[in-house]
């Protein structure tokens, strides 16, 4: 038997573990760096552990990734914020490695540490790291540096600030597209820390250069940042600098760029204000809604409601609605689906008349769309339309769509519609529900797919909550209990599940009179799976039932099950018996 009475040298333990051939052990020891650090104490951690880690980083990427992550939260173990800078060297090395995940994590940790460091420490320690990385020989270092400027800049002195801006400008013109891409994607974050005066001049000229890059991939990232940049500028500067660029981009020959514009346009409208939106951005948006490329139309269609909200109803009706009409019969199902998911939100913007006159026909045609996703997206936003035009107008078209979706061959579609049933029920009211949807809810209990049966049981519970126990007593309970005689045990199991879900809603009396006998009866089932589920259900019923009932009915049944030949049945029966005893004791 090993003894560890001899004195322990924490670093030696670590060194030993890191030598192990098994990567899992090396990983474990890195994951427990904090333990080693605390055993060492703050000073020795700074003087011994951290230098050791800085030198030992030729392990596998997985280990390095863990190290980069651990070091990010290491400030307490090196003696607090004033010593945080000792953590920078190992992370600096990690942010130059080849593997992207490791670099990203190291940059994240550097940012996390930098954000806590004192201003003069940033100047003394953090900014030199940024500068070294930015002038790194290999592109990985320069890529990493781009993500650090926004942390360094606010604490820098004026001359340093100028230098940092210059360096960033150089990174944006780097020889390697990899670096330019990193600079482009971090520009927004960096710009947010820069003073207005420099923003307008230096940053905007950097932005202009990036938008004219000859690599598609760089321009793309520049567009991605333009909304963020636009929000930083004064509205009039945004109009002067960003607007022309974005209008230009909306006609770029690359569909990816146009796609980005379609995604960003709405935010840009917020930044420039209503007037330029009307004059320049509406035409651009209309062009995107009619783009040749389905991907672009999908992105544009998904923003249609948000866009209309910032327009006057009149403009929306005049310019956007015609496009919406076209999109509702678009050849791409994904475009229609994107439209269907947001179109309901337009109703409040347009007002009741325009909605009934213009929107309703579109809405109805989407509801009858040949693709289930499209119909589903409409139905899921039903509450919104109900607020505007009322359910009467809709119920006629709604029902066939629901029935069809309820029997869709894709089980995920069926699942989605089941999940909307309680919402529909509350919108449609008891009367409509009884006539049309009640039968469907029962039918799902016998679906071929387990997830559907499970959802169906849950659905019954939510309906019972919605319409109350009395209604459930009439419309749910009898039908459910009848199905306990289904010849297939999986369906009987679903019923047991439904019972355990319904019981708390129905209350003690009904549970005792109606539900319990059925469960007790099932304990005689020939299938062991049913029997141990009976045990589970009984356990869940105990808190609801009267003590006397538990004593007289539940317990004897469980005792019988606890002597069953099947081991699982005995196990769950015993579990349930123990639970009974505990509940009795506590009450």
């Amino acid at each position, binding site marked *: 038997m090993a003894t*560890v009475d001899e004195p322990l040298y924490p670093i030696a333990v670590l060194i030993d573990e890191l030598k192990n051939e*098994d990567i*899992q052990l090396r990983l474990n020891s890195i994951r427990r760096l904090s333990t080693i650090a605390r055993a060492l104490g*703050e000073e020795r951690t700074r003087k011994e552990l951290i230098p050791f880690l800085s030198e030992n980083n030729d392990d596998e990427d997985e280990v390095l990734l863990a190290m980069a992550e651990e070091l990010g939260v290491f400030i*307490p173990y090196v003696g607090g914020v004033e010593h945080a800078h000792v953590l920078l060297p190992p992370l600096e090395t990690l942010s130059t490695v080849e593997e992207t995940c490791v670099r990203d994590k190291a940059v994240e940790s550097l940012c996390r540490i930098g954000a806590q460091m004192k201003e003069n420490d940033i100047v003394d320690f953090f900014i030199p790291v940024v500068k070294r990385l930015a002038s790194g020989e290999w592109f990985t270092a320069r890529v990493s540096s781009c993500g650090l400027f926004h942390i360094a800049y606010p604490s820098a002195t004026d001359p340093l600030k100028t230098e940092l801006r210059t360096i960033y400008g150089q990174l944006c013109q780097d020889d390697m597209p990899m670096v330019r891409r990193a600079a482009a994607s971090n520009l927004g974050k960096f710009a947010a820390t820069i003073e207005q005066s420099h923003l307008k001049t230096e940053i905007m000229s950097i932005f202009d250069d990036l938008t004219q890059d000859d690599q598609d991939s760089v321009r793309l990232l520049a567009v991605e940042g333009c909304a963020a940049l636009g929000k930083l500028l004064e509205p009039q500067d945004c109009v002067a600098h960003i607007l022309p660029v974005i209008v230009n981009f909306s006609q770029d*020959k690359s569909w990816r760029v146009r796609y980005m514009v379609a995604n960003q346009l709405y935010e840009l409208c917020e930044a420039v204000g209503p007037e330029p939106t009307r004059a320049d951005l509406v035409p651009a948006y209309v062009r995107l809604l009619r783009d040749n*490329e389905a991907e672009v139309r999908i992105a544009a269609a998904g923003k249609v409601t948000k866009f209309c909200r910032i327009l006057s109803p009149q403009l929306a009706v005049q310019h956007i609605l015609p496009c919406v009409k076209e999109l509702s019969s678009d050849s791409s199902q994904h475009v229609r689906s994107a439209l269907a998911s947001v179109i309901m939100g337009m109703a409040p913007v347009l007002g009741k008349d325009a909605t009934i006159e213009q929107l309703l026909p579109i809405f109805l045609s989407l509801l009858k769309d040949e693709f289930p996703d499209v119909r589903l997206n409409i139905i899921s936003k039903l509450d919104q339309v109900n607020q505007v035009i009322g359910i009467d107008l809709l119920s006629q078209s709604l029902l066939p769509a629901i029935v069809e979706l309820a029997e869709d061959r894709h089980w995920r579609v069926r699942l989605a519609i089941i999940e909307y049933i309680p919402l529909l029920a509350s919108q449609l009211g008891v009367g409509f529900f009884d006539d049309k949807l009640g039968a469907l809810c029962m039918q799902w209990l016998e679906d071929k797919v387990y997830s559907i049966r499970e959802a169906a049981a849950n659905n019954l519970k939510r309906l019972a909550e919605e319409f109350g126990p009395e209604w459930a007593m009439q419309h749910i309970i009898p039908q459910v209990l009848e199905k306990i005689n289904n010849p297939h045990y999986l369906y009987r199991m679903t019923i047991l599940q439904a019972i355990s879900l319904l019981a708390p809603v129905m209350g003690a009396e009904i549970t005792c009179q109606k539900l319990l006998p059925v469960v007790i009866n099932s304990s005689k089932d020939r299938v062991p799976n049913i029997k141990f589920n009976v045990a589970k259900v009984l356990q869940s019923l105990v808190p609801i039932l009267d003590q006397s009932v538990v004593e007289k009915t539940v317990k004897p049944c469980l005792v019988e099950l606890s002597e069953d030949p099947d081991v699982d049945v005995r196990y769950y029966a015993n579990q349930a018996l123990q639970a009974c005893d505990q509940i009795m004791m506590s009450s």
Partner: protein
Amino acid sequence: MWKGFIGKLSGKAPKSVGGGGGGWGSPPSKSPTSYGANGGQWDPMRSSPPLPVVAGAEGDTREDVFLRKVTVCCVLFDFSTDRVGRDSPERERKRQVLMSLVDCVGAAEEPLTEAMVSACVGMFAINLFRVFPPKVRPGAGGAAEADEDDPFFDPSWYHLQVVYELLLRFVMSPVVDVKVARKYVDNSFISRLLDLLDSDDPRERDCLKTVLHRIYGKFMGNRPFIRKAVSNIIYRFVSEDDHHNGIAELLEVFGSVISGFAKPLKEEHKLFLCKALIPLHKPKAVGMYLPQLTYCITQFIDKEPKLSGTVIRGLLKYWPVTNSQKEMMFLGELEEVLELTEMPEFQKCMVPLFRRVAHCLNSSHFQVAERALYLWNNEHVFNLISRNHQVILPIIYPALERNARLHWNQSVLNVTMNVRKMFFDMDQKLLLACQKKFQEEEEKQAESEERRRLIWEHLERNAAFHQVTGDISFSVVTKSAPLVAPTMT
């Protein structure tokens, strides 16, 4: 044959209703394209373009006629949707004019004038440089049409094919003067040609491969640029986006480029091996281009045998952990590299290498285990192993023993026994010593695990005495870390 493709494709191609409303009933000339080159807006003029006339007056020079033909070929057609226009005479005429240009360049005896060269390159740019349409969206209730393995055939290949043919003739032709052409076939032109390698259409990539190869051969001044641009494509593929259709073709071109490198290799070329080629083992799609990659790498080792050590360490760095298919490919490449490896290099990396091989031997995927065992069948590899068996056997032995006891697959079991026998014949004493050591360690295993647990527990206790600056949550952190290191056997 390709007409069949086009027919098949235009049936599949998305019928867009984008333009101008009610696109269905409108004449074919109005329907927009997904493959057009001029961006988001369709140009009503473009789809039924009146082609300029080629035939001219009597006194026209060769240049005039040539230039007029090139102008004709600058008109683009939309192949994506319309059925009526497919056999339109205009479209047919463009193809014929293109073919006549091919003949013209092929048969020319006196050099093309600068105006002709410039016009040609401009025409290539207009026809070839386009933005590829998005990939078919997978899943989301979509039909089974999104079959990944189905190659995509660009419907406009009808014209593209001849344009590529002409480009190839142009680049190869002795009547095109390099000094003149270099002004137009510049870095930006080449860079956009490289972008086209991402095309979904295998025929296009194949043409590009040949063209790029010829350009690299003919335009010496652009060689450094081409190498740099290709490196950039590879860096991006490896570290950013993981998708590129043309890596195999690029590597094929580079296979012959590398074989042309002068000895001794320049530092720049070695950097390309270490920073671009070896990391190409990482992406999951490595199977798509591994033969070409292996070829490039063996070319390097051929030039400078010392590089084999670098390559082997690279392979070990990117060795797949869970993907058995990839692991088998790696073992295949490893064997090829080992074939070229000389003793001093082998000795430098054999320890980590055979730790990895030992893992492979124990793989529960029998093909991986088998593939690893077959390394012993290779004469050169066997020779390397047998001359270093003092080092290798102790590393391998536990794996052999474990296979012999536990491996489920009969064939793996048999080959394992053979390999064991080989070592036995080589050095009976050492084998028995390894066997003894293995048994001892097996007995001690539980003990060493217990010891590890105690050490960490002890550390934890020590740690608890030390206060930590400004951190209240450390006690929670310690609890969440597992006390016992899971064992991996």
